[in-house]
């Protein structure tokens, strides 16, 4: 086990959760963070799907890294990701149809997620499969955390519910409280992501630019 979780591997896993967060620090994957965070449920599903796909495409690219011709490496990465996503989607359609209906658009969105290309290009192309796998998991979870934070506020303030369950009691509405429709609009996701980055940076002084 000690070899599996060396200090470097641990750093590879924990880094993206905070200090090197794909959304907060690398500012990757923002596009999907806007699209799927109006509700908590799709945010969690998207976070998990991206985690799985990043981890496995990282492994595949890492295994192939010494054979991939440099000039077409981006294309190769894209093909690997697209093939993987398509296979997963086909399997879901055959064996978990309800899940695939729920995921519908997100499956396609995974391919376009910049975190995937970013990790494949920056990490998997120059690291061993196991580290790449851990890096994929770390980045996937780092992405999922931010998505869940954003979705939490948007669903709570925008729909008055969490995970589809009403949490703000009717009495509060009767007293004049209203759901904030703006929370459901994509611009609000940007603003919340910006707030997350703000809080994150003020807590981590070394992330601040001079």
């Amino acid at each position, binding site marked *: 086990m000690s070899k599996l979780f060396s200090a470097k591997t641990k750093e590879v896993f924990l880094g993206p959760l905070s200090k090197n967060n794909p959304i907060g620090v690398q500012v990757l994957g923002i596009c999907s963070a806007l*699209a*799927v965070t109006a509700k908590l449920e799709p945010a969690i599903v998207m976070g998990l799907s991206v985690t799985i796909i990043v981890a496995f495409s990282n492994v595949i690219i890492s295994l192939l890294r010494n054979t*991939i*011709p440099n000039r077409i490496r981006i294309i190769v990465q894209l093909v690997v990701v697209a093939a993987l996503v398509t*296979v997963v989607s086909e399997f879901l*359609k055959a064996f978990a*149809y309800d899940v695939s209906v729920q995921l519908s658009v997100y499956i396609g969105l995974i391919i376009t997620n910049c975190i995937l290309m970013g990790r494949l290009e920056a990490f998997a192309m120059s690291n061993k499969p196991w580290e790449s796998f851990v890096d994929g998991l770390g980045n996937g979870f780092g992405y999922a955390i931010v998505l869940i934070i954003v979705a939490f506020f948007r669903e709570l303030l925008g729909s008055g519910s969490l995970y589809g369950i009403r949490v703000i009691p009717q009495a509060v509405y009767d007293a004049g409280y209203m759901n904030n429709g703006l929370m*459901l609009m994509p611009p609000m996701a940007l603003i919340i992501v910006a707030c997350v980055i703000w809080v994150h940076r003020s807590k981590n002084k070394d992330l601040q630019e001079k």
Partner: protein
Amino acid sequence: MDTNKNSYTIIFATVMVVIVALMLAFVSGALKDKQTANVKLDKKKQILTSLSVEIDNQDADELFNKIITGGLVINSKAEVLSDSKEQAFEIDINKELSKPLEKRQLPVYIANIDGKTKYVVSLRGAGLWGPIWGYLSLNDDKNTVFGSYFSHASETPGLGAEISQKSFQAEFIGKKVMNNENKFVSIAVVKPGQTAEGMDYVDGISGGTITSKGVDAMLMNCIGQYETFLQQPATGGAKQ
């Protein structure tokens, strides 16, 4: 090995494409039957949902056979082309909509809920990002809505996607698609707070205006095809 040589790059790309193509073709071919079965089962579930039938964990196939007692394939002049439930079920409404109105084959499902006859018609239209579809069930007066089901391929969660929520679908119950002169007027989907002249209306989705308009247009276009059929008095055509 020099991985930067032109010949290597071309061979690598070719081999990769062939391998990936074979793999995807194999996966797709191997899972095709299961997927088609799933799509059919889901269609049955959708039709049942439009009849406000709770499926939960029951066998949707069995439930469908029990509740849907018959089916018709009609054209826009309400001539019955077939009265087989299976043929009605096989119709792809999307393909029919691309044909001229007179040539379209329209499915009608006849259901028996607690001894009462219900008619289910098929809907298909466009939302903001992609197709939307649904089923509308009518009471035996072929006018009052008994239940509805809407779904979508890729509307925005929290906005347009809300059309697949029960709360939106329940708004249609009891609305009428015909006016007092037995003319088809559809049901309008309006912005919350607004009303519609001369027809029944339901509240659209806040922030999902284009999807709401899509539902509005879909109801108008798709139920409109059935106008002649709906004007005919119910003949008790339901085969028990």
